[in-house]
């Protein structure tokens, strides 16, 4: 992996909330992060025939369902063990067992994914133990597979929950590895859109690579209209494929921040490497040409085949459009916000089209965030009038404050930044997660050359539209 992190010695102003930076004492206002069980649920929805169970109060499941429905606009069945006061005092085992029984009798799932909540963690519930007891008391029947993961929100956000659950799925389902005994490649794409997942699968197919992508909600959370009713939407990573994860030839795990090897952010790929010596490749999220090049190079190496013509053309057209649009973008200033690896990817893209990322903010608190931004901004930094302000543990109020100071030309990130764009009359380019105020969040493409093309067009057109709307004459040609 190419990394610039040691070459440029932190030229950035880091305002790290988690380690006592400028915003450390600001009360959390309009958080730029979600809770861990949401990330867990999203992963479970990307496993075939899997029902998520949140062990805690009813509200956790309902809020998360509502939040995800507003983004994906798809059915979102997530069960709860529906804690009552007595469960909090005497333990939630009874509700846990009843919950699983009821899920099985309604859905006959292949997998039940159990994650904890703040409440069940605080009272010391151990779902691993609860599952053991459940299994041994129901030996008389065939049971689905179980995945269990600890996701208290007081020790991590939705991305931590997401990554922990991908890892837990592999840990709970994979059979003892034969160490690269099968041709399959594990691919862990992280929190990307269904359209991104479909595109990744198309690319892997075109390279002729056999793969297991986890999670894969490309169909389950973006399904065509139904002509018959499905209790669980079709699609998702098949359980059987996950069982082979420890025999894969290698793992491909997206994310420079996730791949940063900190104590608590080790991903599924790294876990498999540690446990079973499955080689883990860790490119950044392939957003923009440079990051996508790294990804495609990796695939060329893995498959032994050159990049198919189709993608060479996509890349070529993308560069052609970069040239067509470069004048409208050079020197523009942008604020990027969202999940860490998403922000890093966006920084990579903006840095290669002449846009100056003035603020890179995330609600996450990884110590690798600044290094990763560093690495992808690379040489472009020399052209920036001042280094980007990198904010760990950001909330939208601190982003608003920074926006008022830095006066960007546009914002890029999820739709929760809309109130800042409205207040400052700036374009917001909606992408990532969540997009609650527009249709088509599932179809937003971010990854690879095709994703970069969509993003580039959206960014350039947002700037053009803004200029046109604010011009005194309203011209007809650019």
């Amino acid at each position, binding site marked *: 992996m190419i990394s610039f992190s040691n070459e440029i010695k932190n030229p950035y102003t880091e305002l790290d909330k988690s380690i006592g930076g400028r915003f450390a004492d600001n009360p959390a206002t309009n958080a730029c992060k979600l809770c861990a069980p949401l990330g867990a649920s999203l992963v479970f929805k990307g496993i075939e025939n899997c029902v998520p169970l949140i062990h805690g109060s009813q509200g956790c499941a309902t809020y998360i369902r509502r939040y995800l429905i507003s983004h994906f606009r798809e059915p979102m069945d997530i069960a709860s063990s529906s804690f009552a*006061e007595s469960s909090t005092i005497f333990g939630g085992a009874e509700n846990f067992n009843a919950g699983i029984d*009821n899920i099985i009798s*309604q859905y006959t799932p292949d997998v039940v994914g159990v994650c904890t909540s703040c409440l069940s963690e605080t009272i010391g519930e151990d779902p691993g133990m609860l599952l053991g007891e459940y299994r041994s008391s129901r030996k008389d029947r065939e049971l689905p597979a179980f995945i269990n993961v600890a996701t208290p929100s007081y020790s991590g956000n939705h991305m931590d929950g997401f990554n922990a659950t991908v890892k837990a799925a592999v840990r709970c389902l994979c059979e003892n590895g034969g160490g690269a005994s099968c041709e399959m490649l594990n691919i862990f794409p992280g929190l990307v859109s269904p359209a991104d997942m479909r595109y990744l699968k198309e690319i892997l197919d075109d390279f002729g690579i056999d793969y297991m992508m986890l999670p894969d909600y490309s169909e389950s959370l973006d399904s065509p209209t139904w002509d018959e009713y499905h209790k669980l939407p079709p699609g998702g990573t098949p359980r059987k494929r996950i069982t082979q994860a420890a025999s894969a030839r290698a793992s491909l795990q997206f994310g420079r921040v996730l791949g940063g090897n900190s104590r608590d952010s080790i991903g599924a790929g790294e876990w498999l490497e540690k446990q079973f010596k499955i080689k883990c490749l860790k490119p950044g999220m392939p957003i923009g040409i440079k990051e996508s090049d790294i990804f495609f190079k990796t695939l060329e190496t893995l498959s032994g085949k050159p990049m198919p013509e189709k993608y060479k053309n996509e890349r070529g057209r993308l560069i052609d459009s970069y040239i067509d649009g470069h004048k409208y973008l050079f020197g523009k200033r942008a604020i990027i916000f969202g999940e860490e690896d998403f922000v890093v990817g966006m920084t990579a893209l903006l840095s290669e089209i002449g846009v100056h990322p003035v603020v890179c903010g995330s609600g996450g608190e990884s110590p690798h965030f600044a290094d990763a931004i560093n690495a992808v901004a690379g040489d472009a930094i020399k052209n920036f009038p001042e280094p980007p302000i990198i904010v760990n543990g950001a909330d939208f109020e601190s982003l608003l404050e920074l926006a008022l100071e830095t006066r960007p030309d546009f914002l890029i990130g999820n739709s929760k930044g809309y109130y800042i764009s409205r207040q400052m009359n700036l374009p917001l380019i909606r992408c990532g997660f969540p997009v609650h105020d527009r249709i088509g969040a599932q179809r937003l493409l971010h990854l690879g050359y095709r994703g970069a093309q969509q993003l580039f067009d959206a960014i350039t057109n947002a700037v053009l539209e803004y200029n046109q709307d604010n011009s005194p004459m309203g011209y007809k040609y650019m």
Partner: protein
Amino acid sequence: MNDILKDRALQIATRTGNEEVNIDCSKASLAGSVSQRACVFCGSRVVLFPIVDALHLIHGPVGCAVYTWDIRGTVSSGPELHRQSFSTDLREKHVIFGGEKKLYTTLTSLIDKHNPKAAFVYSTCIVGVIGDDVEAICRKVEKEKHIPVIPVNSAGFKGSKKDGYKAACDALAQLIGTSDEPAPEFSINILGDFNLAGELWLLEEYYRKMGVNILARITGDGRIDDIRKAHKAQLNVVQCAGSMIHLAKDMEEKYGIPFKRVSYFGVEDMSQALYEVAEFFGSSHMMEKTRELVSEELSKLLPVLEKYRERLEGKKAVIYVGGAFKAVSLIKALRLLGIQTVVVGSQTGKKEDYEIMGRLCDPGTILVDDSNPLELAKFARETGADIFIGGVKERPIAFKMGLGFCDHNHERKEALAGYVGMENFARELYASVLSPVWQFAGMKEKAL
């Protein structure tokens, strides 16, 4: 594979003949049933949310705050502090060592920054478990900052959404009676309208024309100072009775203010609400004004509705909403449009509510309490429904099954209350059911 869980069987009934339907409701959601309900915290949060000049601080880890950030389409005529999401964002160390200090510093710095008229501090699940004395912190800050600081006892697991309504009412009760400013004659409080899409302003206009003065709006477009003097009103007019009945009863007991349960949805219920208020004040002038108002509104509305009715007549509807009183109004409103209700249910209905619904519905109608997606889909399929009236979580179920949908919940952007609301409601049903897109979609079994 069962569509209906054994332990839920008594929460479902089909109206057969003339006998009363009997639903075993008001109980905790069954574990593993994907209930559409939220929790105690949610109940409190949605009720208090529209108080626009208060600080709403959620004490707990970040999730509960972030999922309720600007969650209702409730509109303000002034301050918009309620649209911010404040959280103490508790971390592991707070879970171990307690969150009181974090609560104190967060609360005081937010009050300094935003100068609210009052602050509500919502407890989430873990607050009670880790033993924070929220009440004591609130008292302390109240003394220091000289504004009411009110703890809301809303730990998620302590019951259902309905218990959250009660916790919100208890919090409001602490405010009411703390200001003795006198009220003009013919003053009422509006309870249980949340000013979604400006609905409360429509009602206010009707009441103004009748000569009625609105003292406190509880809570849509609500103001702390108005709520503090709400005990000076002569009458409480309560919509969304499920959420506000505790407060109405409490005020009746403490201050002798009578209350009326009303609904502003549909022509009949809307008119009845206004007549009941006029009747209460016993002023013939007011009654005359009310008649004028109602007949003027109806003369505009009815011809429009007739046009929609021509196209909607004979359609079948599923209603699944939070509160049962709304469901009752919807059955009537749909009937006015020639639409038959074939399934009706609510998250928090009481036994009496279901009896009323049962009496209103035709034989064969399915009634359900605290339902889940599988049941709702099954009922909609079996009854051959054409349209679904629900909230965000019901929408994808309806759409995947090829049913039209009307959002009658927090996210709605069009007023559905009042006479204007009835027209909007009809138009929305019409626009969804008769959209040409359905020619490409829908279940095979429905086509049979």
